[in-house]
């Protein structure tokens, strides 16, 4: 256990104008699960990309199994036993599981023909070892996120990986799938595989990691045993200052009802959904991925048709057929995927903020650019969006700042009801807290918030009430007093405690 499999010595990476890694030195021991944490921009990805041969280093040394090495491509690293699994999977959707696992290193028979029998046998062995129910002949595109991830792991193992790097592996997994992943991580560890685990979710790190290394602004801060370090201390090391509260929440007395849903159904997706939402209230929606949470928001927002049921907004019965109608009724949706749903990456900060409000600040179809500029500048200031100017393309901003631009779009519009779908996915601790403050601000101003989140701590800490969804239904409603990790999970999984795999 004490032997170092990877050792960094004064590793430095300089991009033009920026020092991404500054003399980083630490070691990863053979067979451990080593967490790597830090805010966005701390240098985690750069470090990983140097290890896997994506970037060349500027200076410093990397030792692998005692030898100084430099990999020139991910494939080079892979052949030497270092594999990385990114959030964006490297799989070919139209091909089968077998083909994906052995892509790039098919066994061949004499004469160069592919030895399918041997490949299938080996692939089956890997899948069996991982103990996940996957048909090796299935097309990868038909698998859910969790199973795709398992295929990635099998692919890494097919290269006899000694070091497996996982970048935010649980970001899009449901709780049950996370459990499966953790079981796999543990059995890999028993096989002597070393795992470098990158995650924003500190709770998870405590569950499966042995040691943690913190990076901040390209500098190495510390490596600690997780049994010997408090979460608050890790956060403090990441942020560089003391974070007083991770989940700030100012409580208010809920006001009058602004949204009421009765018996809402959408065939095969949502069934008999009823609930209400009040002013100055955050109503959390918990549940597994695939339980219908996002679908509920979509239906209410006019994106998907409703088969049955009624919706009242501020006491008025409404039927909403399009996002435009939803918006004009005072609803705002902050979607799950900011890059593909929330933002037009090619456009500037100002133009993105302007999207929902252009008609209001236009004069006979002509844009009032001065007004738009003022609004954008005000929003950048209010939300503390870190951007060189309002003319910067949003594609150049960090994740947290992008998310703030999505919020700015809707703050400029002053909506009454905000739907948040995974409001803090993939953004760092500092930006998270800012977004929570903003939600509080909205509540203070008298808005109502419906929040879907897979991060239980977020649901527990912020919600006034929690709806738990399961298989398209509301499995139960919990008050602030009743809501605990256990009570939510119990409802989310249900009595039929069977594999709730998302697909």
């Amino acid at each position: 256990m004490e032997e170092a499999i990877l050792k960094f010595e004064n590793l430095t990476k300089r991009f033009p104008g920026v020092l991404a890694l500054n003399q980083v030195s630490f070691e990863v021991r053979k067979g451990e699960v080593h967490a790597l944490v830090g805010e966005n921009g701390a240098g985690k990805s750069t470090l990983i990309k140097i290890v896997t041969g994506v970037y060349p280093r500027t200076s410093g040394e990397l030792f692998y199994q005692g030898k100084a090495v430099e990999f020139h491509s991910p494939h080079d690293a892979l052949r030497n036993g270092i594999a990385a699994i990114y959030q964006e999977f490297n799989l070919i959707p139209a091909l089968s599981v077998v083909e994906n696992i052995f892509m790039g290193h098919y066994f061949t028979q004499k004469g160069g023909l592919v030895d399918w029998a041997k490949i299938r046998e080996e692939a089956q062995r890997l899948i069996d070892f991982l103990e996940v129910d996957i048909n090796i002949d299935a097309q990868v595109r038909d698998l859910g996120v969790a199973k795709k991830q398992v295929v990635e792991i099998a692919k890494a193992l097919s290269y006899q990986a000694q070091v497996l790097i996982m970048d935010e592996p649980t970001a899009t997994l449901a709780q049950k799938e996370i459990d499966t992943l953790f079981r796999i991580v543990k059995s890999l560890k028993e096989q002597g595989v070393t795992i470098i685990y990158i995650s924003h979710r500190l709770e998870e790190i405590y569950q499966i990691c042995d040691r943690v290394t913190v990076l901040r602004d390209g500098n190495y801060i510390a490596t600690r045993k997780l049994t010997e370090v408090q979460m608050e201390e890790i956060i403090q090391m990441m942020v560089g200052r003391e974070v007083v509260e991770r989940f700030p929440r100012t409580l208010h007395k809920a006001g009058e009802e602004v949204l009421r849903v009765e018996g809402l159904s959408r065939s095969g997706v949502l069934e008999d959904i009823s609930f209400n939402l009040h002013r100055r209230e955050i109503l959390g929606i918990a549940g597994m991925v695939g339980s219908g949470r996002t679908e509920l928001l979509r239906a209410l927002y006019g994106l998907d048709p409703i088969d049955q049921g009624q919706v009242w907004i501020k006491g008025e019965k409404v039927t909403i057929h399009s996002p435009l109608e939803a918006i004009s009724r005072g609803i705002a949706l902050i979607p799950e995927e900011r890059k593909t749903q929330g933002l037009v990456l090619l456009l500037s900060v100002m133009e993105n903020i302007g999207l929902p409000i252009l008609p209001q600040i236009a004069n006979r179809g002509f844009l009032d650019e001065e007004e738009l500029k003022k609004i954008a500048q005000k929003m950048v200031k209010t939300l503390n969006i870190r951007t060189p100017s309002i003319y910067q393309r949003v594609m150049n901003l960090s994740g947290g700042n992008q998310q703030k631009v999505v919020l700015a779009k809707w703050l400029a519009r002053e909506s009454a009801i905000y739907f948040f779908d995974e409001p803090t996915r993939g953004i760092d601790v500092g930006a998270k807290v800012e977004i929570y403050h903003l939600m509080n601000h909205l509540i203070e101003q008298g808005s109502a918030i419906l929040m879907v989140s897979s991060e239980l701590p977020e649901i527990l800490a912020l919600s006034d009430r929690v709806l738990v969804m399961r298989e398209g239904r509301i499995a139960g409603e919990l008050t602030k007093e009743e809501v605990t990790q256990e009570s939510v999970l119990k409802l989310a999984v249900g009595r039929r405690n069977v594999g709730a795999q998302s697909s």
Partner: protein
Amino acid sequence: MPSLPEEKTTSVSIAGRFFIFWEKAGILLAFIVVCVVFGILTPVFFHPLNILNVIRQVSIIGVMAVGMTFVILLAGIDLSVGSIVAFTGIIAAAFQVKWGGSLFLSIVVPLLIGAGIGFFNGFVSTKGGLHPFIVTLGSMSIFRGATLLVAQGRPISGMSPEFRFIGAGMVGPIPFPVILFLGSVVVAGIVLRKTVFGRYIYAIGGNPEAALLSGIRVDRYKILAFTILGFLAGLSGLILTSRLNSGELVAGQGYELDVIASVIIGGTSLMGGEGGVYGSLIGALLIGVISNGLNLLGVQPYWQMIVKGAIIILAVLLDKMRQRFRAS
């Protein structure tokens, strides 16, 4: 998660500088270089009459390139414009010669038909969820056939002097089609820059889903863009029929290539969301200038097609490299 994309864009390599420059003024520079080269090779090239001649020849393609810019900005494509030119042209000629000779009807009906075909293309591709490539490929065949049907296989010739003004008239020293062309460029430029509709075009082209979630009626604007293009193709049909003094069966054949090429050479991305109508203006002029210059030099016309094709590939290649540079 790529945590450090910003710093790479601050790197100002020579390639980077070139692409930043190219994005802003590359096509204009290419245009100027080509003009200077032809000017040196054949002194006639810069004669005012020749310059007007080039712009007049370009105006038919150019008017459509204006409309095509809207469609391509929305990541769409329209292959049917050449057939719209032929069909609206033959309808105009029929009104002039066979169906009573009303000037009003021979102008208004073709324009409405052009807009109608554009609407059809837009409606079927958005509401039917079909790629516009397929829908307009169909339209291309349908309206070429309809042209032959209306004409009964024979061109229709002999327009009234008033109608001939559209394609052959002069306002002072300037040909009327040139006014139509440059006028539509200016109007489209203002629409794209200054109006809500224009800004929506860029938002939808950049990310249709984000646009939809922001309350933009994505389908409606897509259909509108196709309708505008159809209308402008109808206008081109009028100009062509008027200038030829005849509704021709093969009118507009292959125009879709020149129109799309003008837009692409002008820097509008086939992926949508980036570009503009002034680029298309230069793109159309560049194609026209090359044809004209090679003509003046006495080069076989066959070479023109080869050169044109090479320029298209080069332009798209440069665009691709620019995008790759920005992505890294």
